[in-house]
């Protein structure tokens, strides 16, 4: 596989991984500064990037350099200090809190390192819960249940549908989490170290799932340190010191 690496000065120019592909996520001069009392800590210092629709991308870089912050801003979990995030043509900064929630519910699925399942609900109920807040998915509980079962089947956990998270292995919990992220049929899946808490066998299972999901046309963006994961990505975005330092297209 040939590689093409572009050095990026993210403060000044937009780096497009694939100029011919339509971008589903675009950021312009994105900055984020955390303020605690009088102390200001800049986490992102102006990131310009475009992530093509249907791509499998990884955001890599050393710990503490702004990868997760970038994912939170791109996913609308947090507000930028300045700059824009545009998701499928929608400028996040223009959305109010409710509209942003609707965007998260309909267009983005999240997968986290520590699975973040609701511990008092079964695997099936965890997947169903994601549908509670989206107006565009079936409101009837029977239909929700059928879809949740279908998704658990997709991740090979239909036999664990009624198990609580603490009855599942780490890999199984992460697969439930992936099923949940797909509940509202979002176009984008954002994942923060999805294999960071898994053994190698579980990691392999989860990666296989992700590739299968990517094959259905979803845009997948993964924040990771794991080379097993980043090796499979089509595009690598490297974040250093709060800036996009390079983009590698494979």
């Amino acid at each position, binding site marked *: 596989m040939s590689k093409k690496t572009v050095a990026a000065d993210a403060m000044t120019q937009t780096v497009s991984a694939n100029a011919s592909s339509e971008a589903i996520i675009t950021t312009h001069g994105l900055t984020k500064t955390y303020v605690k009392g009088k102390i200001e800590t800049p986490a992102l210092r102006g990131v310009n990037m475009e992530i093509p629709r249907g791509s499998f991308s990884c955001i890599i870089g050393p710990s503490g350099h702004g990868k997760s912050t970038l994912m939170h801003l791109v996913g609308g979990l947090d507000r930028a200090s300045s700059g824009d995030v545009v998701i499928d043509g929608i400028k996040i900064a223009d959305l109010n809190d409710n509209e942003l929630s*609707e965007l998260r519910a309909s267009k983005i699925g999240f997968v986290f390192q520590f699975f973040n399942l609701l511990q008092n609900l079964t695997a099936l109920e965890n997947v169903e819960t994601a549908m509670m807040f989206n107006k565009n998915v079936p409101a009837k509980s029977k239909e929700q249940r059928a879809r949740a079962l279908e998704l658990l089947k997709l991740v090979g956990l239909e036999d664990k549908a009624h198990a609580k998270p603490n009855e599942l292995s780490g890999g199984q919990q992460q697969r439930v989490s992936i099923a949940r992220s797909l509940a509202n049929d979002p176009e984008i899946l954002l994942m923060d170290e999805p294999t960071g808490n898994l053994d190698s066998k579980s990691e392999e299972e989860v990666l296989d799932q992700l590739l299968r999901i990517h094959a259905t046309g979803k845009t997948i963006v993964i924040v990771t340190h794991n080379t097993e994961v980043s090796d499979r990505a089509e595009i690598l975005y490297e974040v250093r010191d709060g800036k996009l330092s390079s983009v590698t297209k494979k």
Partner: protein
Amino acid sequence: MNTLSLVMRNITRRKGRFIFTLLGIAIGMAAFVALLALGGGMRAEIRNQAQAMGANLIVTPTDWCTFDQISIFTGEPLPASLSSEVLDEIRDIEGIFVAPYLTQASAIDMTPVAVIGIEVETMKEFSQWEMAEGQYFSTDADRSVVLGASIANQFDLGLGQEVIIRGESFPIVGVLEPVDNLDDLGVYLPIPVVQEAFEIDDNISYIGVQVENIENVESYRAAILDRVNVAVSSDEQLLESVLAILGSVEVTLQAVAAISLVAASFGIVNTMMTAIYERRREIGILRSIGSKRADIFKIFMLESAIYGLLGGVIGSAVGVLVSLFAAPTIMAGFDQIMKGASLEASIEPMTIVTAIGLSIAIAVVAGLYPAWKASNLTPVEAISYE
């Protein structure tokens, strides 16, 4: 999955905390409902007693205090300070019918009883008594007693037996049919006999007045006051005096119940605040999967409201049971102040509805601040919480 089922899962996940929080509000509500039910029962009984007297106006000496006046309803001994001249003056007024009473204290088998002097002929008509056994008095000079039904039953007394009053034996000539009020607990003698036995001059305690035309009760009152220097109260006024005293007792007790409810509401605040800290990450998860601030607010408010609803339902049920079972015990005390009364808890459906509504309202108010706190967490600060 819907909000309610999610809330029910949340609320019952820590069973111990759930039960103790629920107990707090349920106990407060139980006290509140029991007090309302018993208070309602007392009110009903006092009204019943007042109606049983059959008088529209009560004439008493001017120096009687409210306590003396309401003692008419409670069968307590009363001072004998109205003269027979006063009685005659009032009796001369057209359109009214008067019945004098002389209430004194005695004892049977060391138990206090009310000895009530009456005018034989007047009282027969005024109270429309029926005889269960024996005969009524024939004249005001009869040195005998007629017993109320409950007194006869309580001391197992009947015809042929005697009652000793102030050292003198009086034969029992008759027992009244039960009338289910204060009259059942009287030991009746003609007024002159009581006056002689208790060494009271020609005085009586108070006068019951029936008026011909109830619409003109105020003009009769004016006519009485015009003739003699007495106090005239309507039975409604006396009733209001009694109910006002009872009302202030009720308000005090309900205030105590209300304080326990307020304390319970802080229990809800505490439980909900703890839940927010424990479930901070979960709030973040819900926010990340698309829930709005309003959804989080709704979830926490619903949890509080369910505490209120369940606390209200359980508390009301316990309160009703307590009032039903406690009524006879409380009756023992109530009987001391209102002889012949029978106390039953007055459980109105509206009381239950009010109690449950109040419980929910308190819980909702208690839940406002925690729910607001929870809904104001940003998704990223909640999801990043360790």
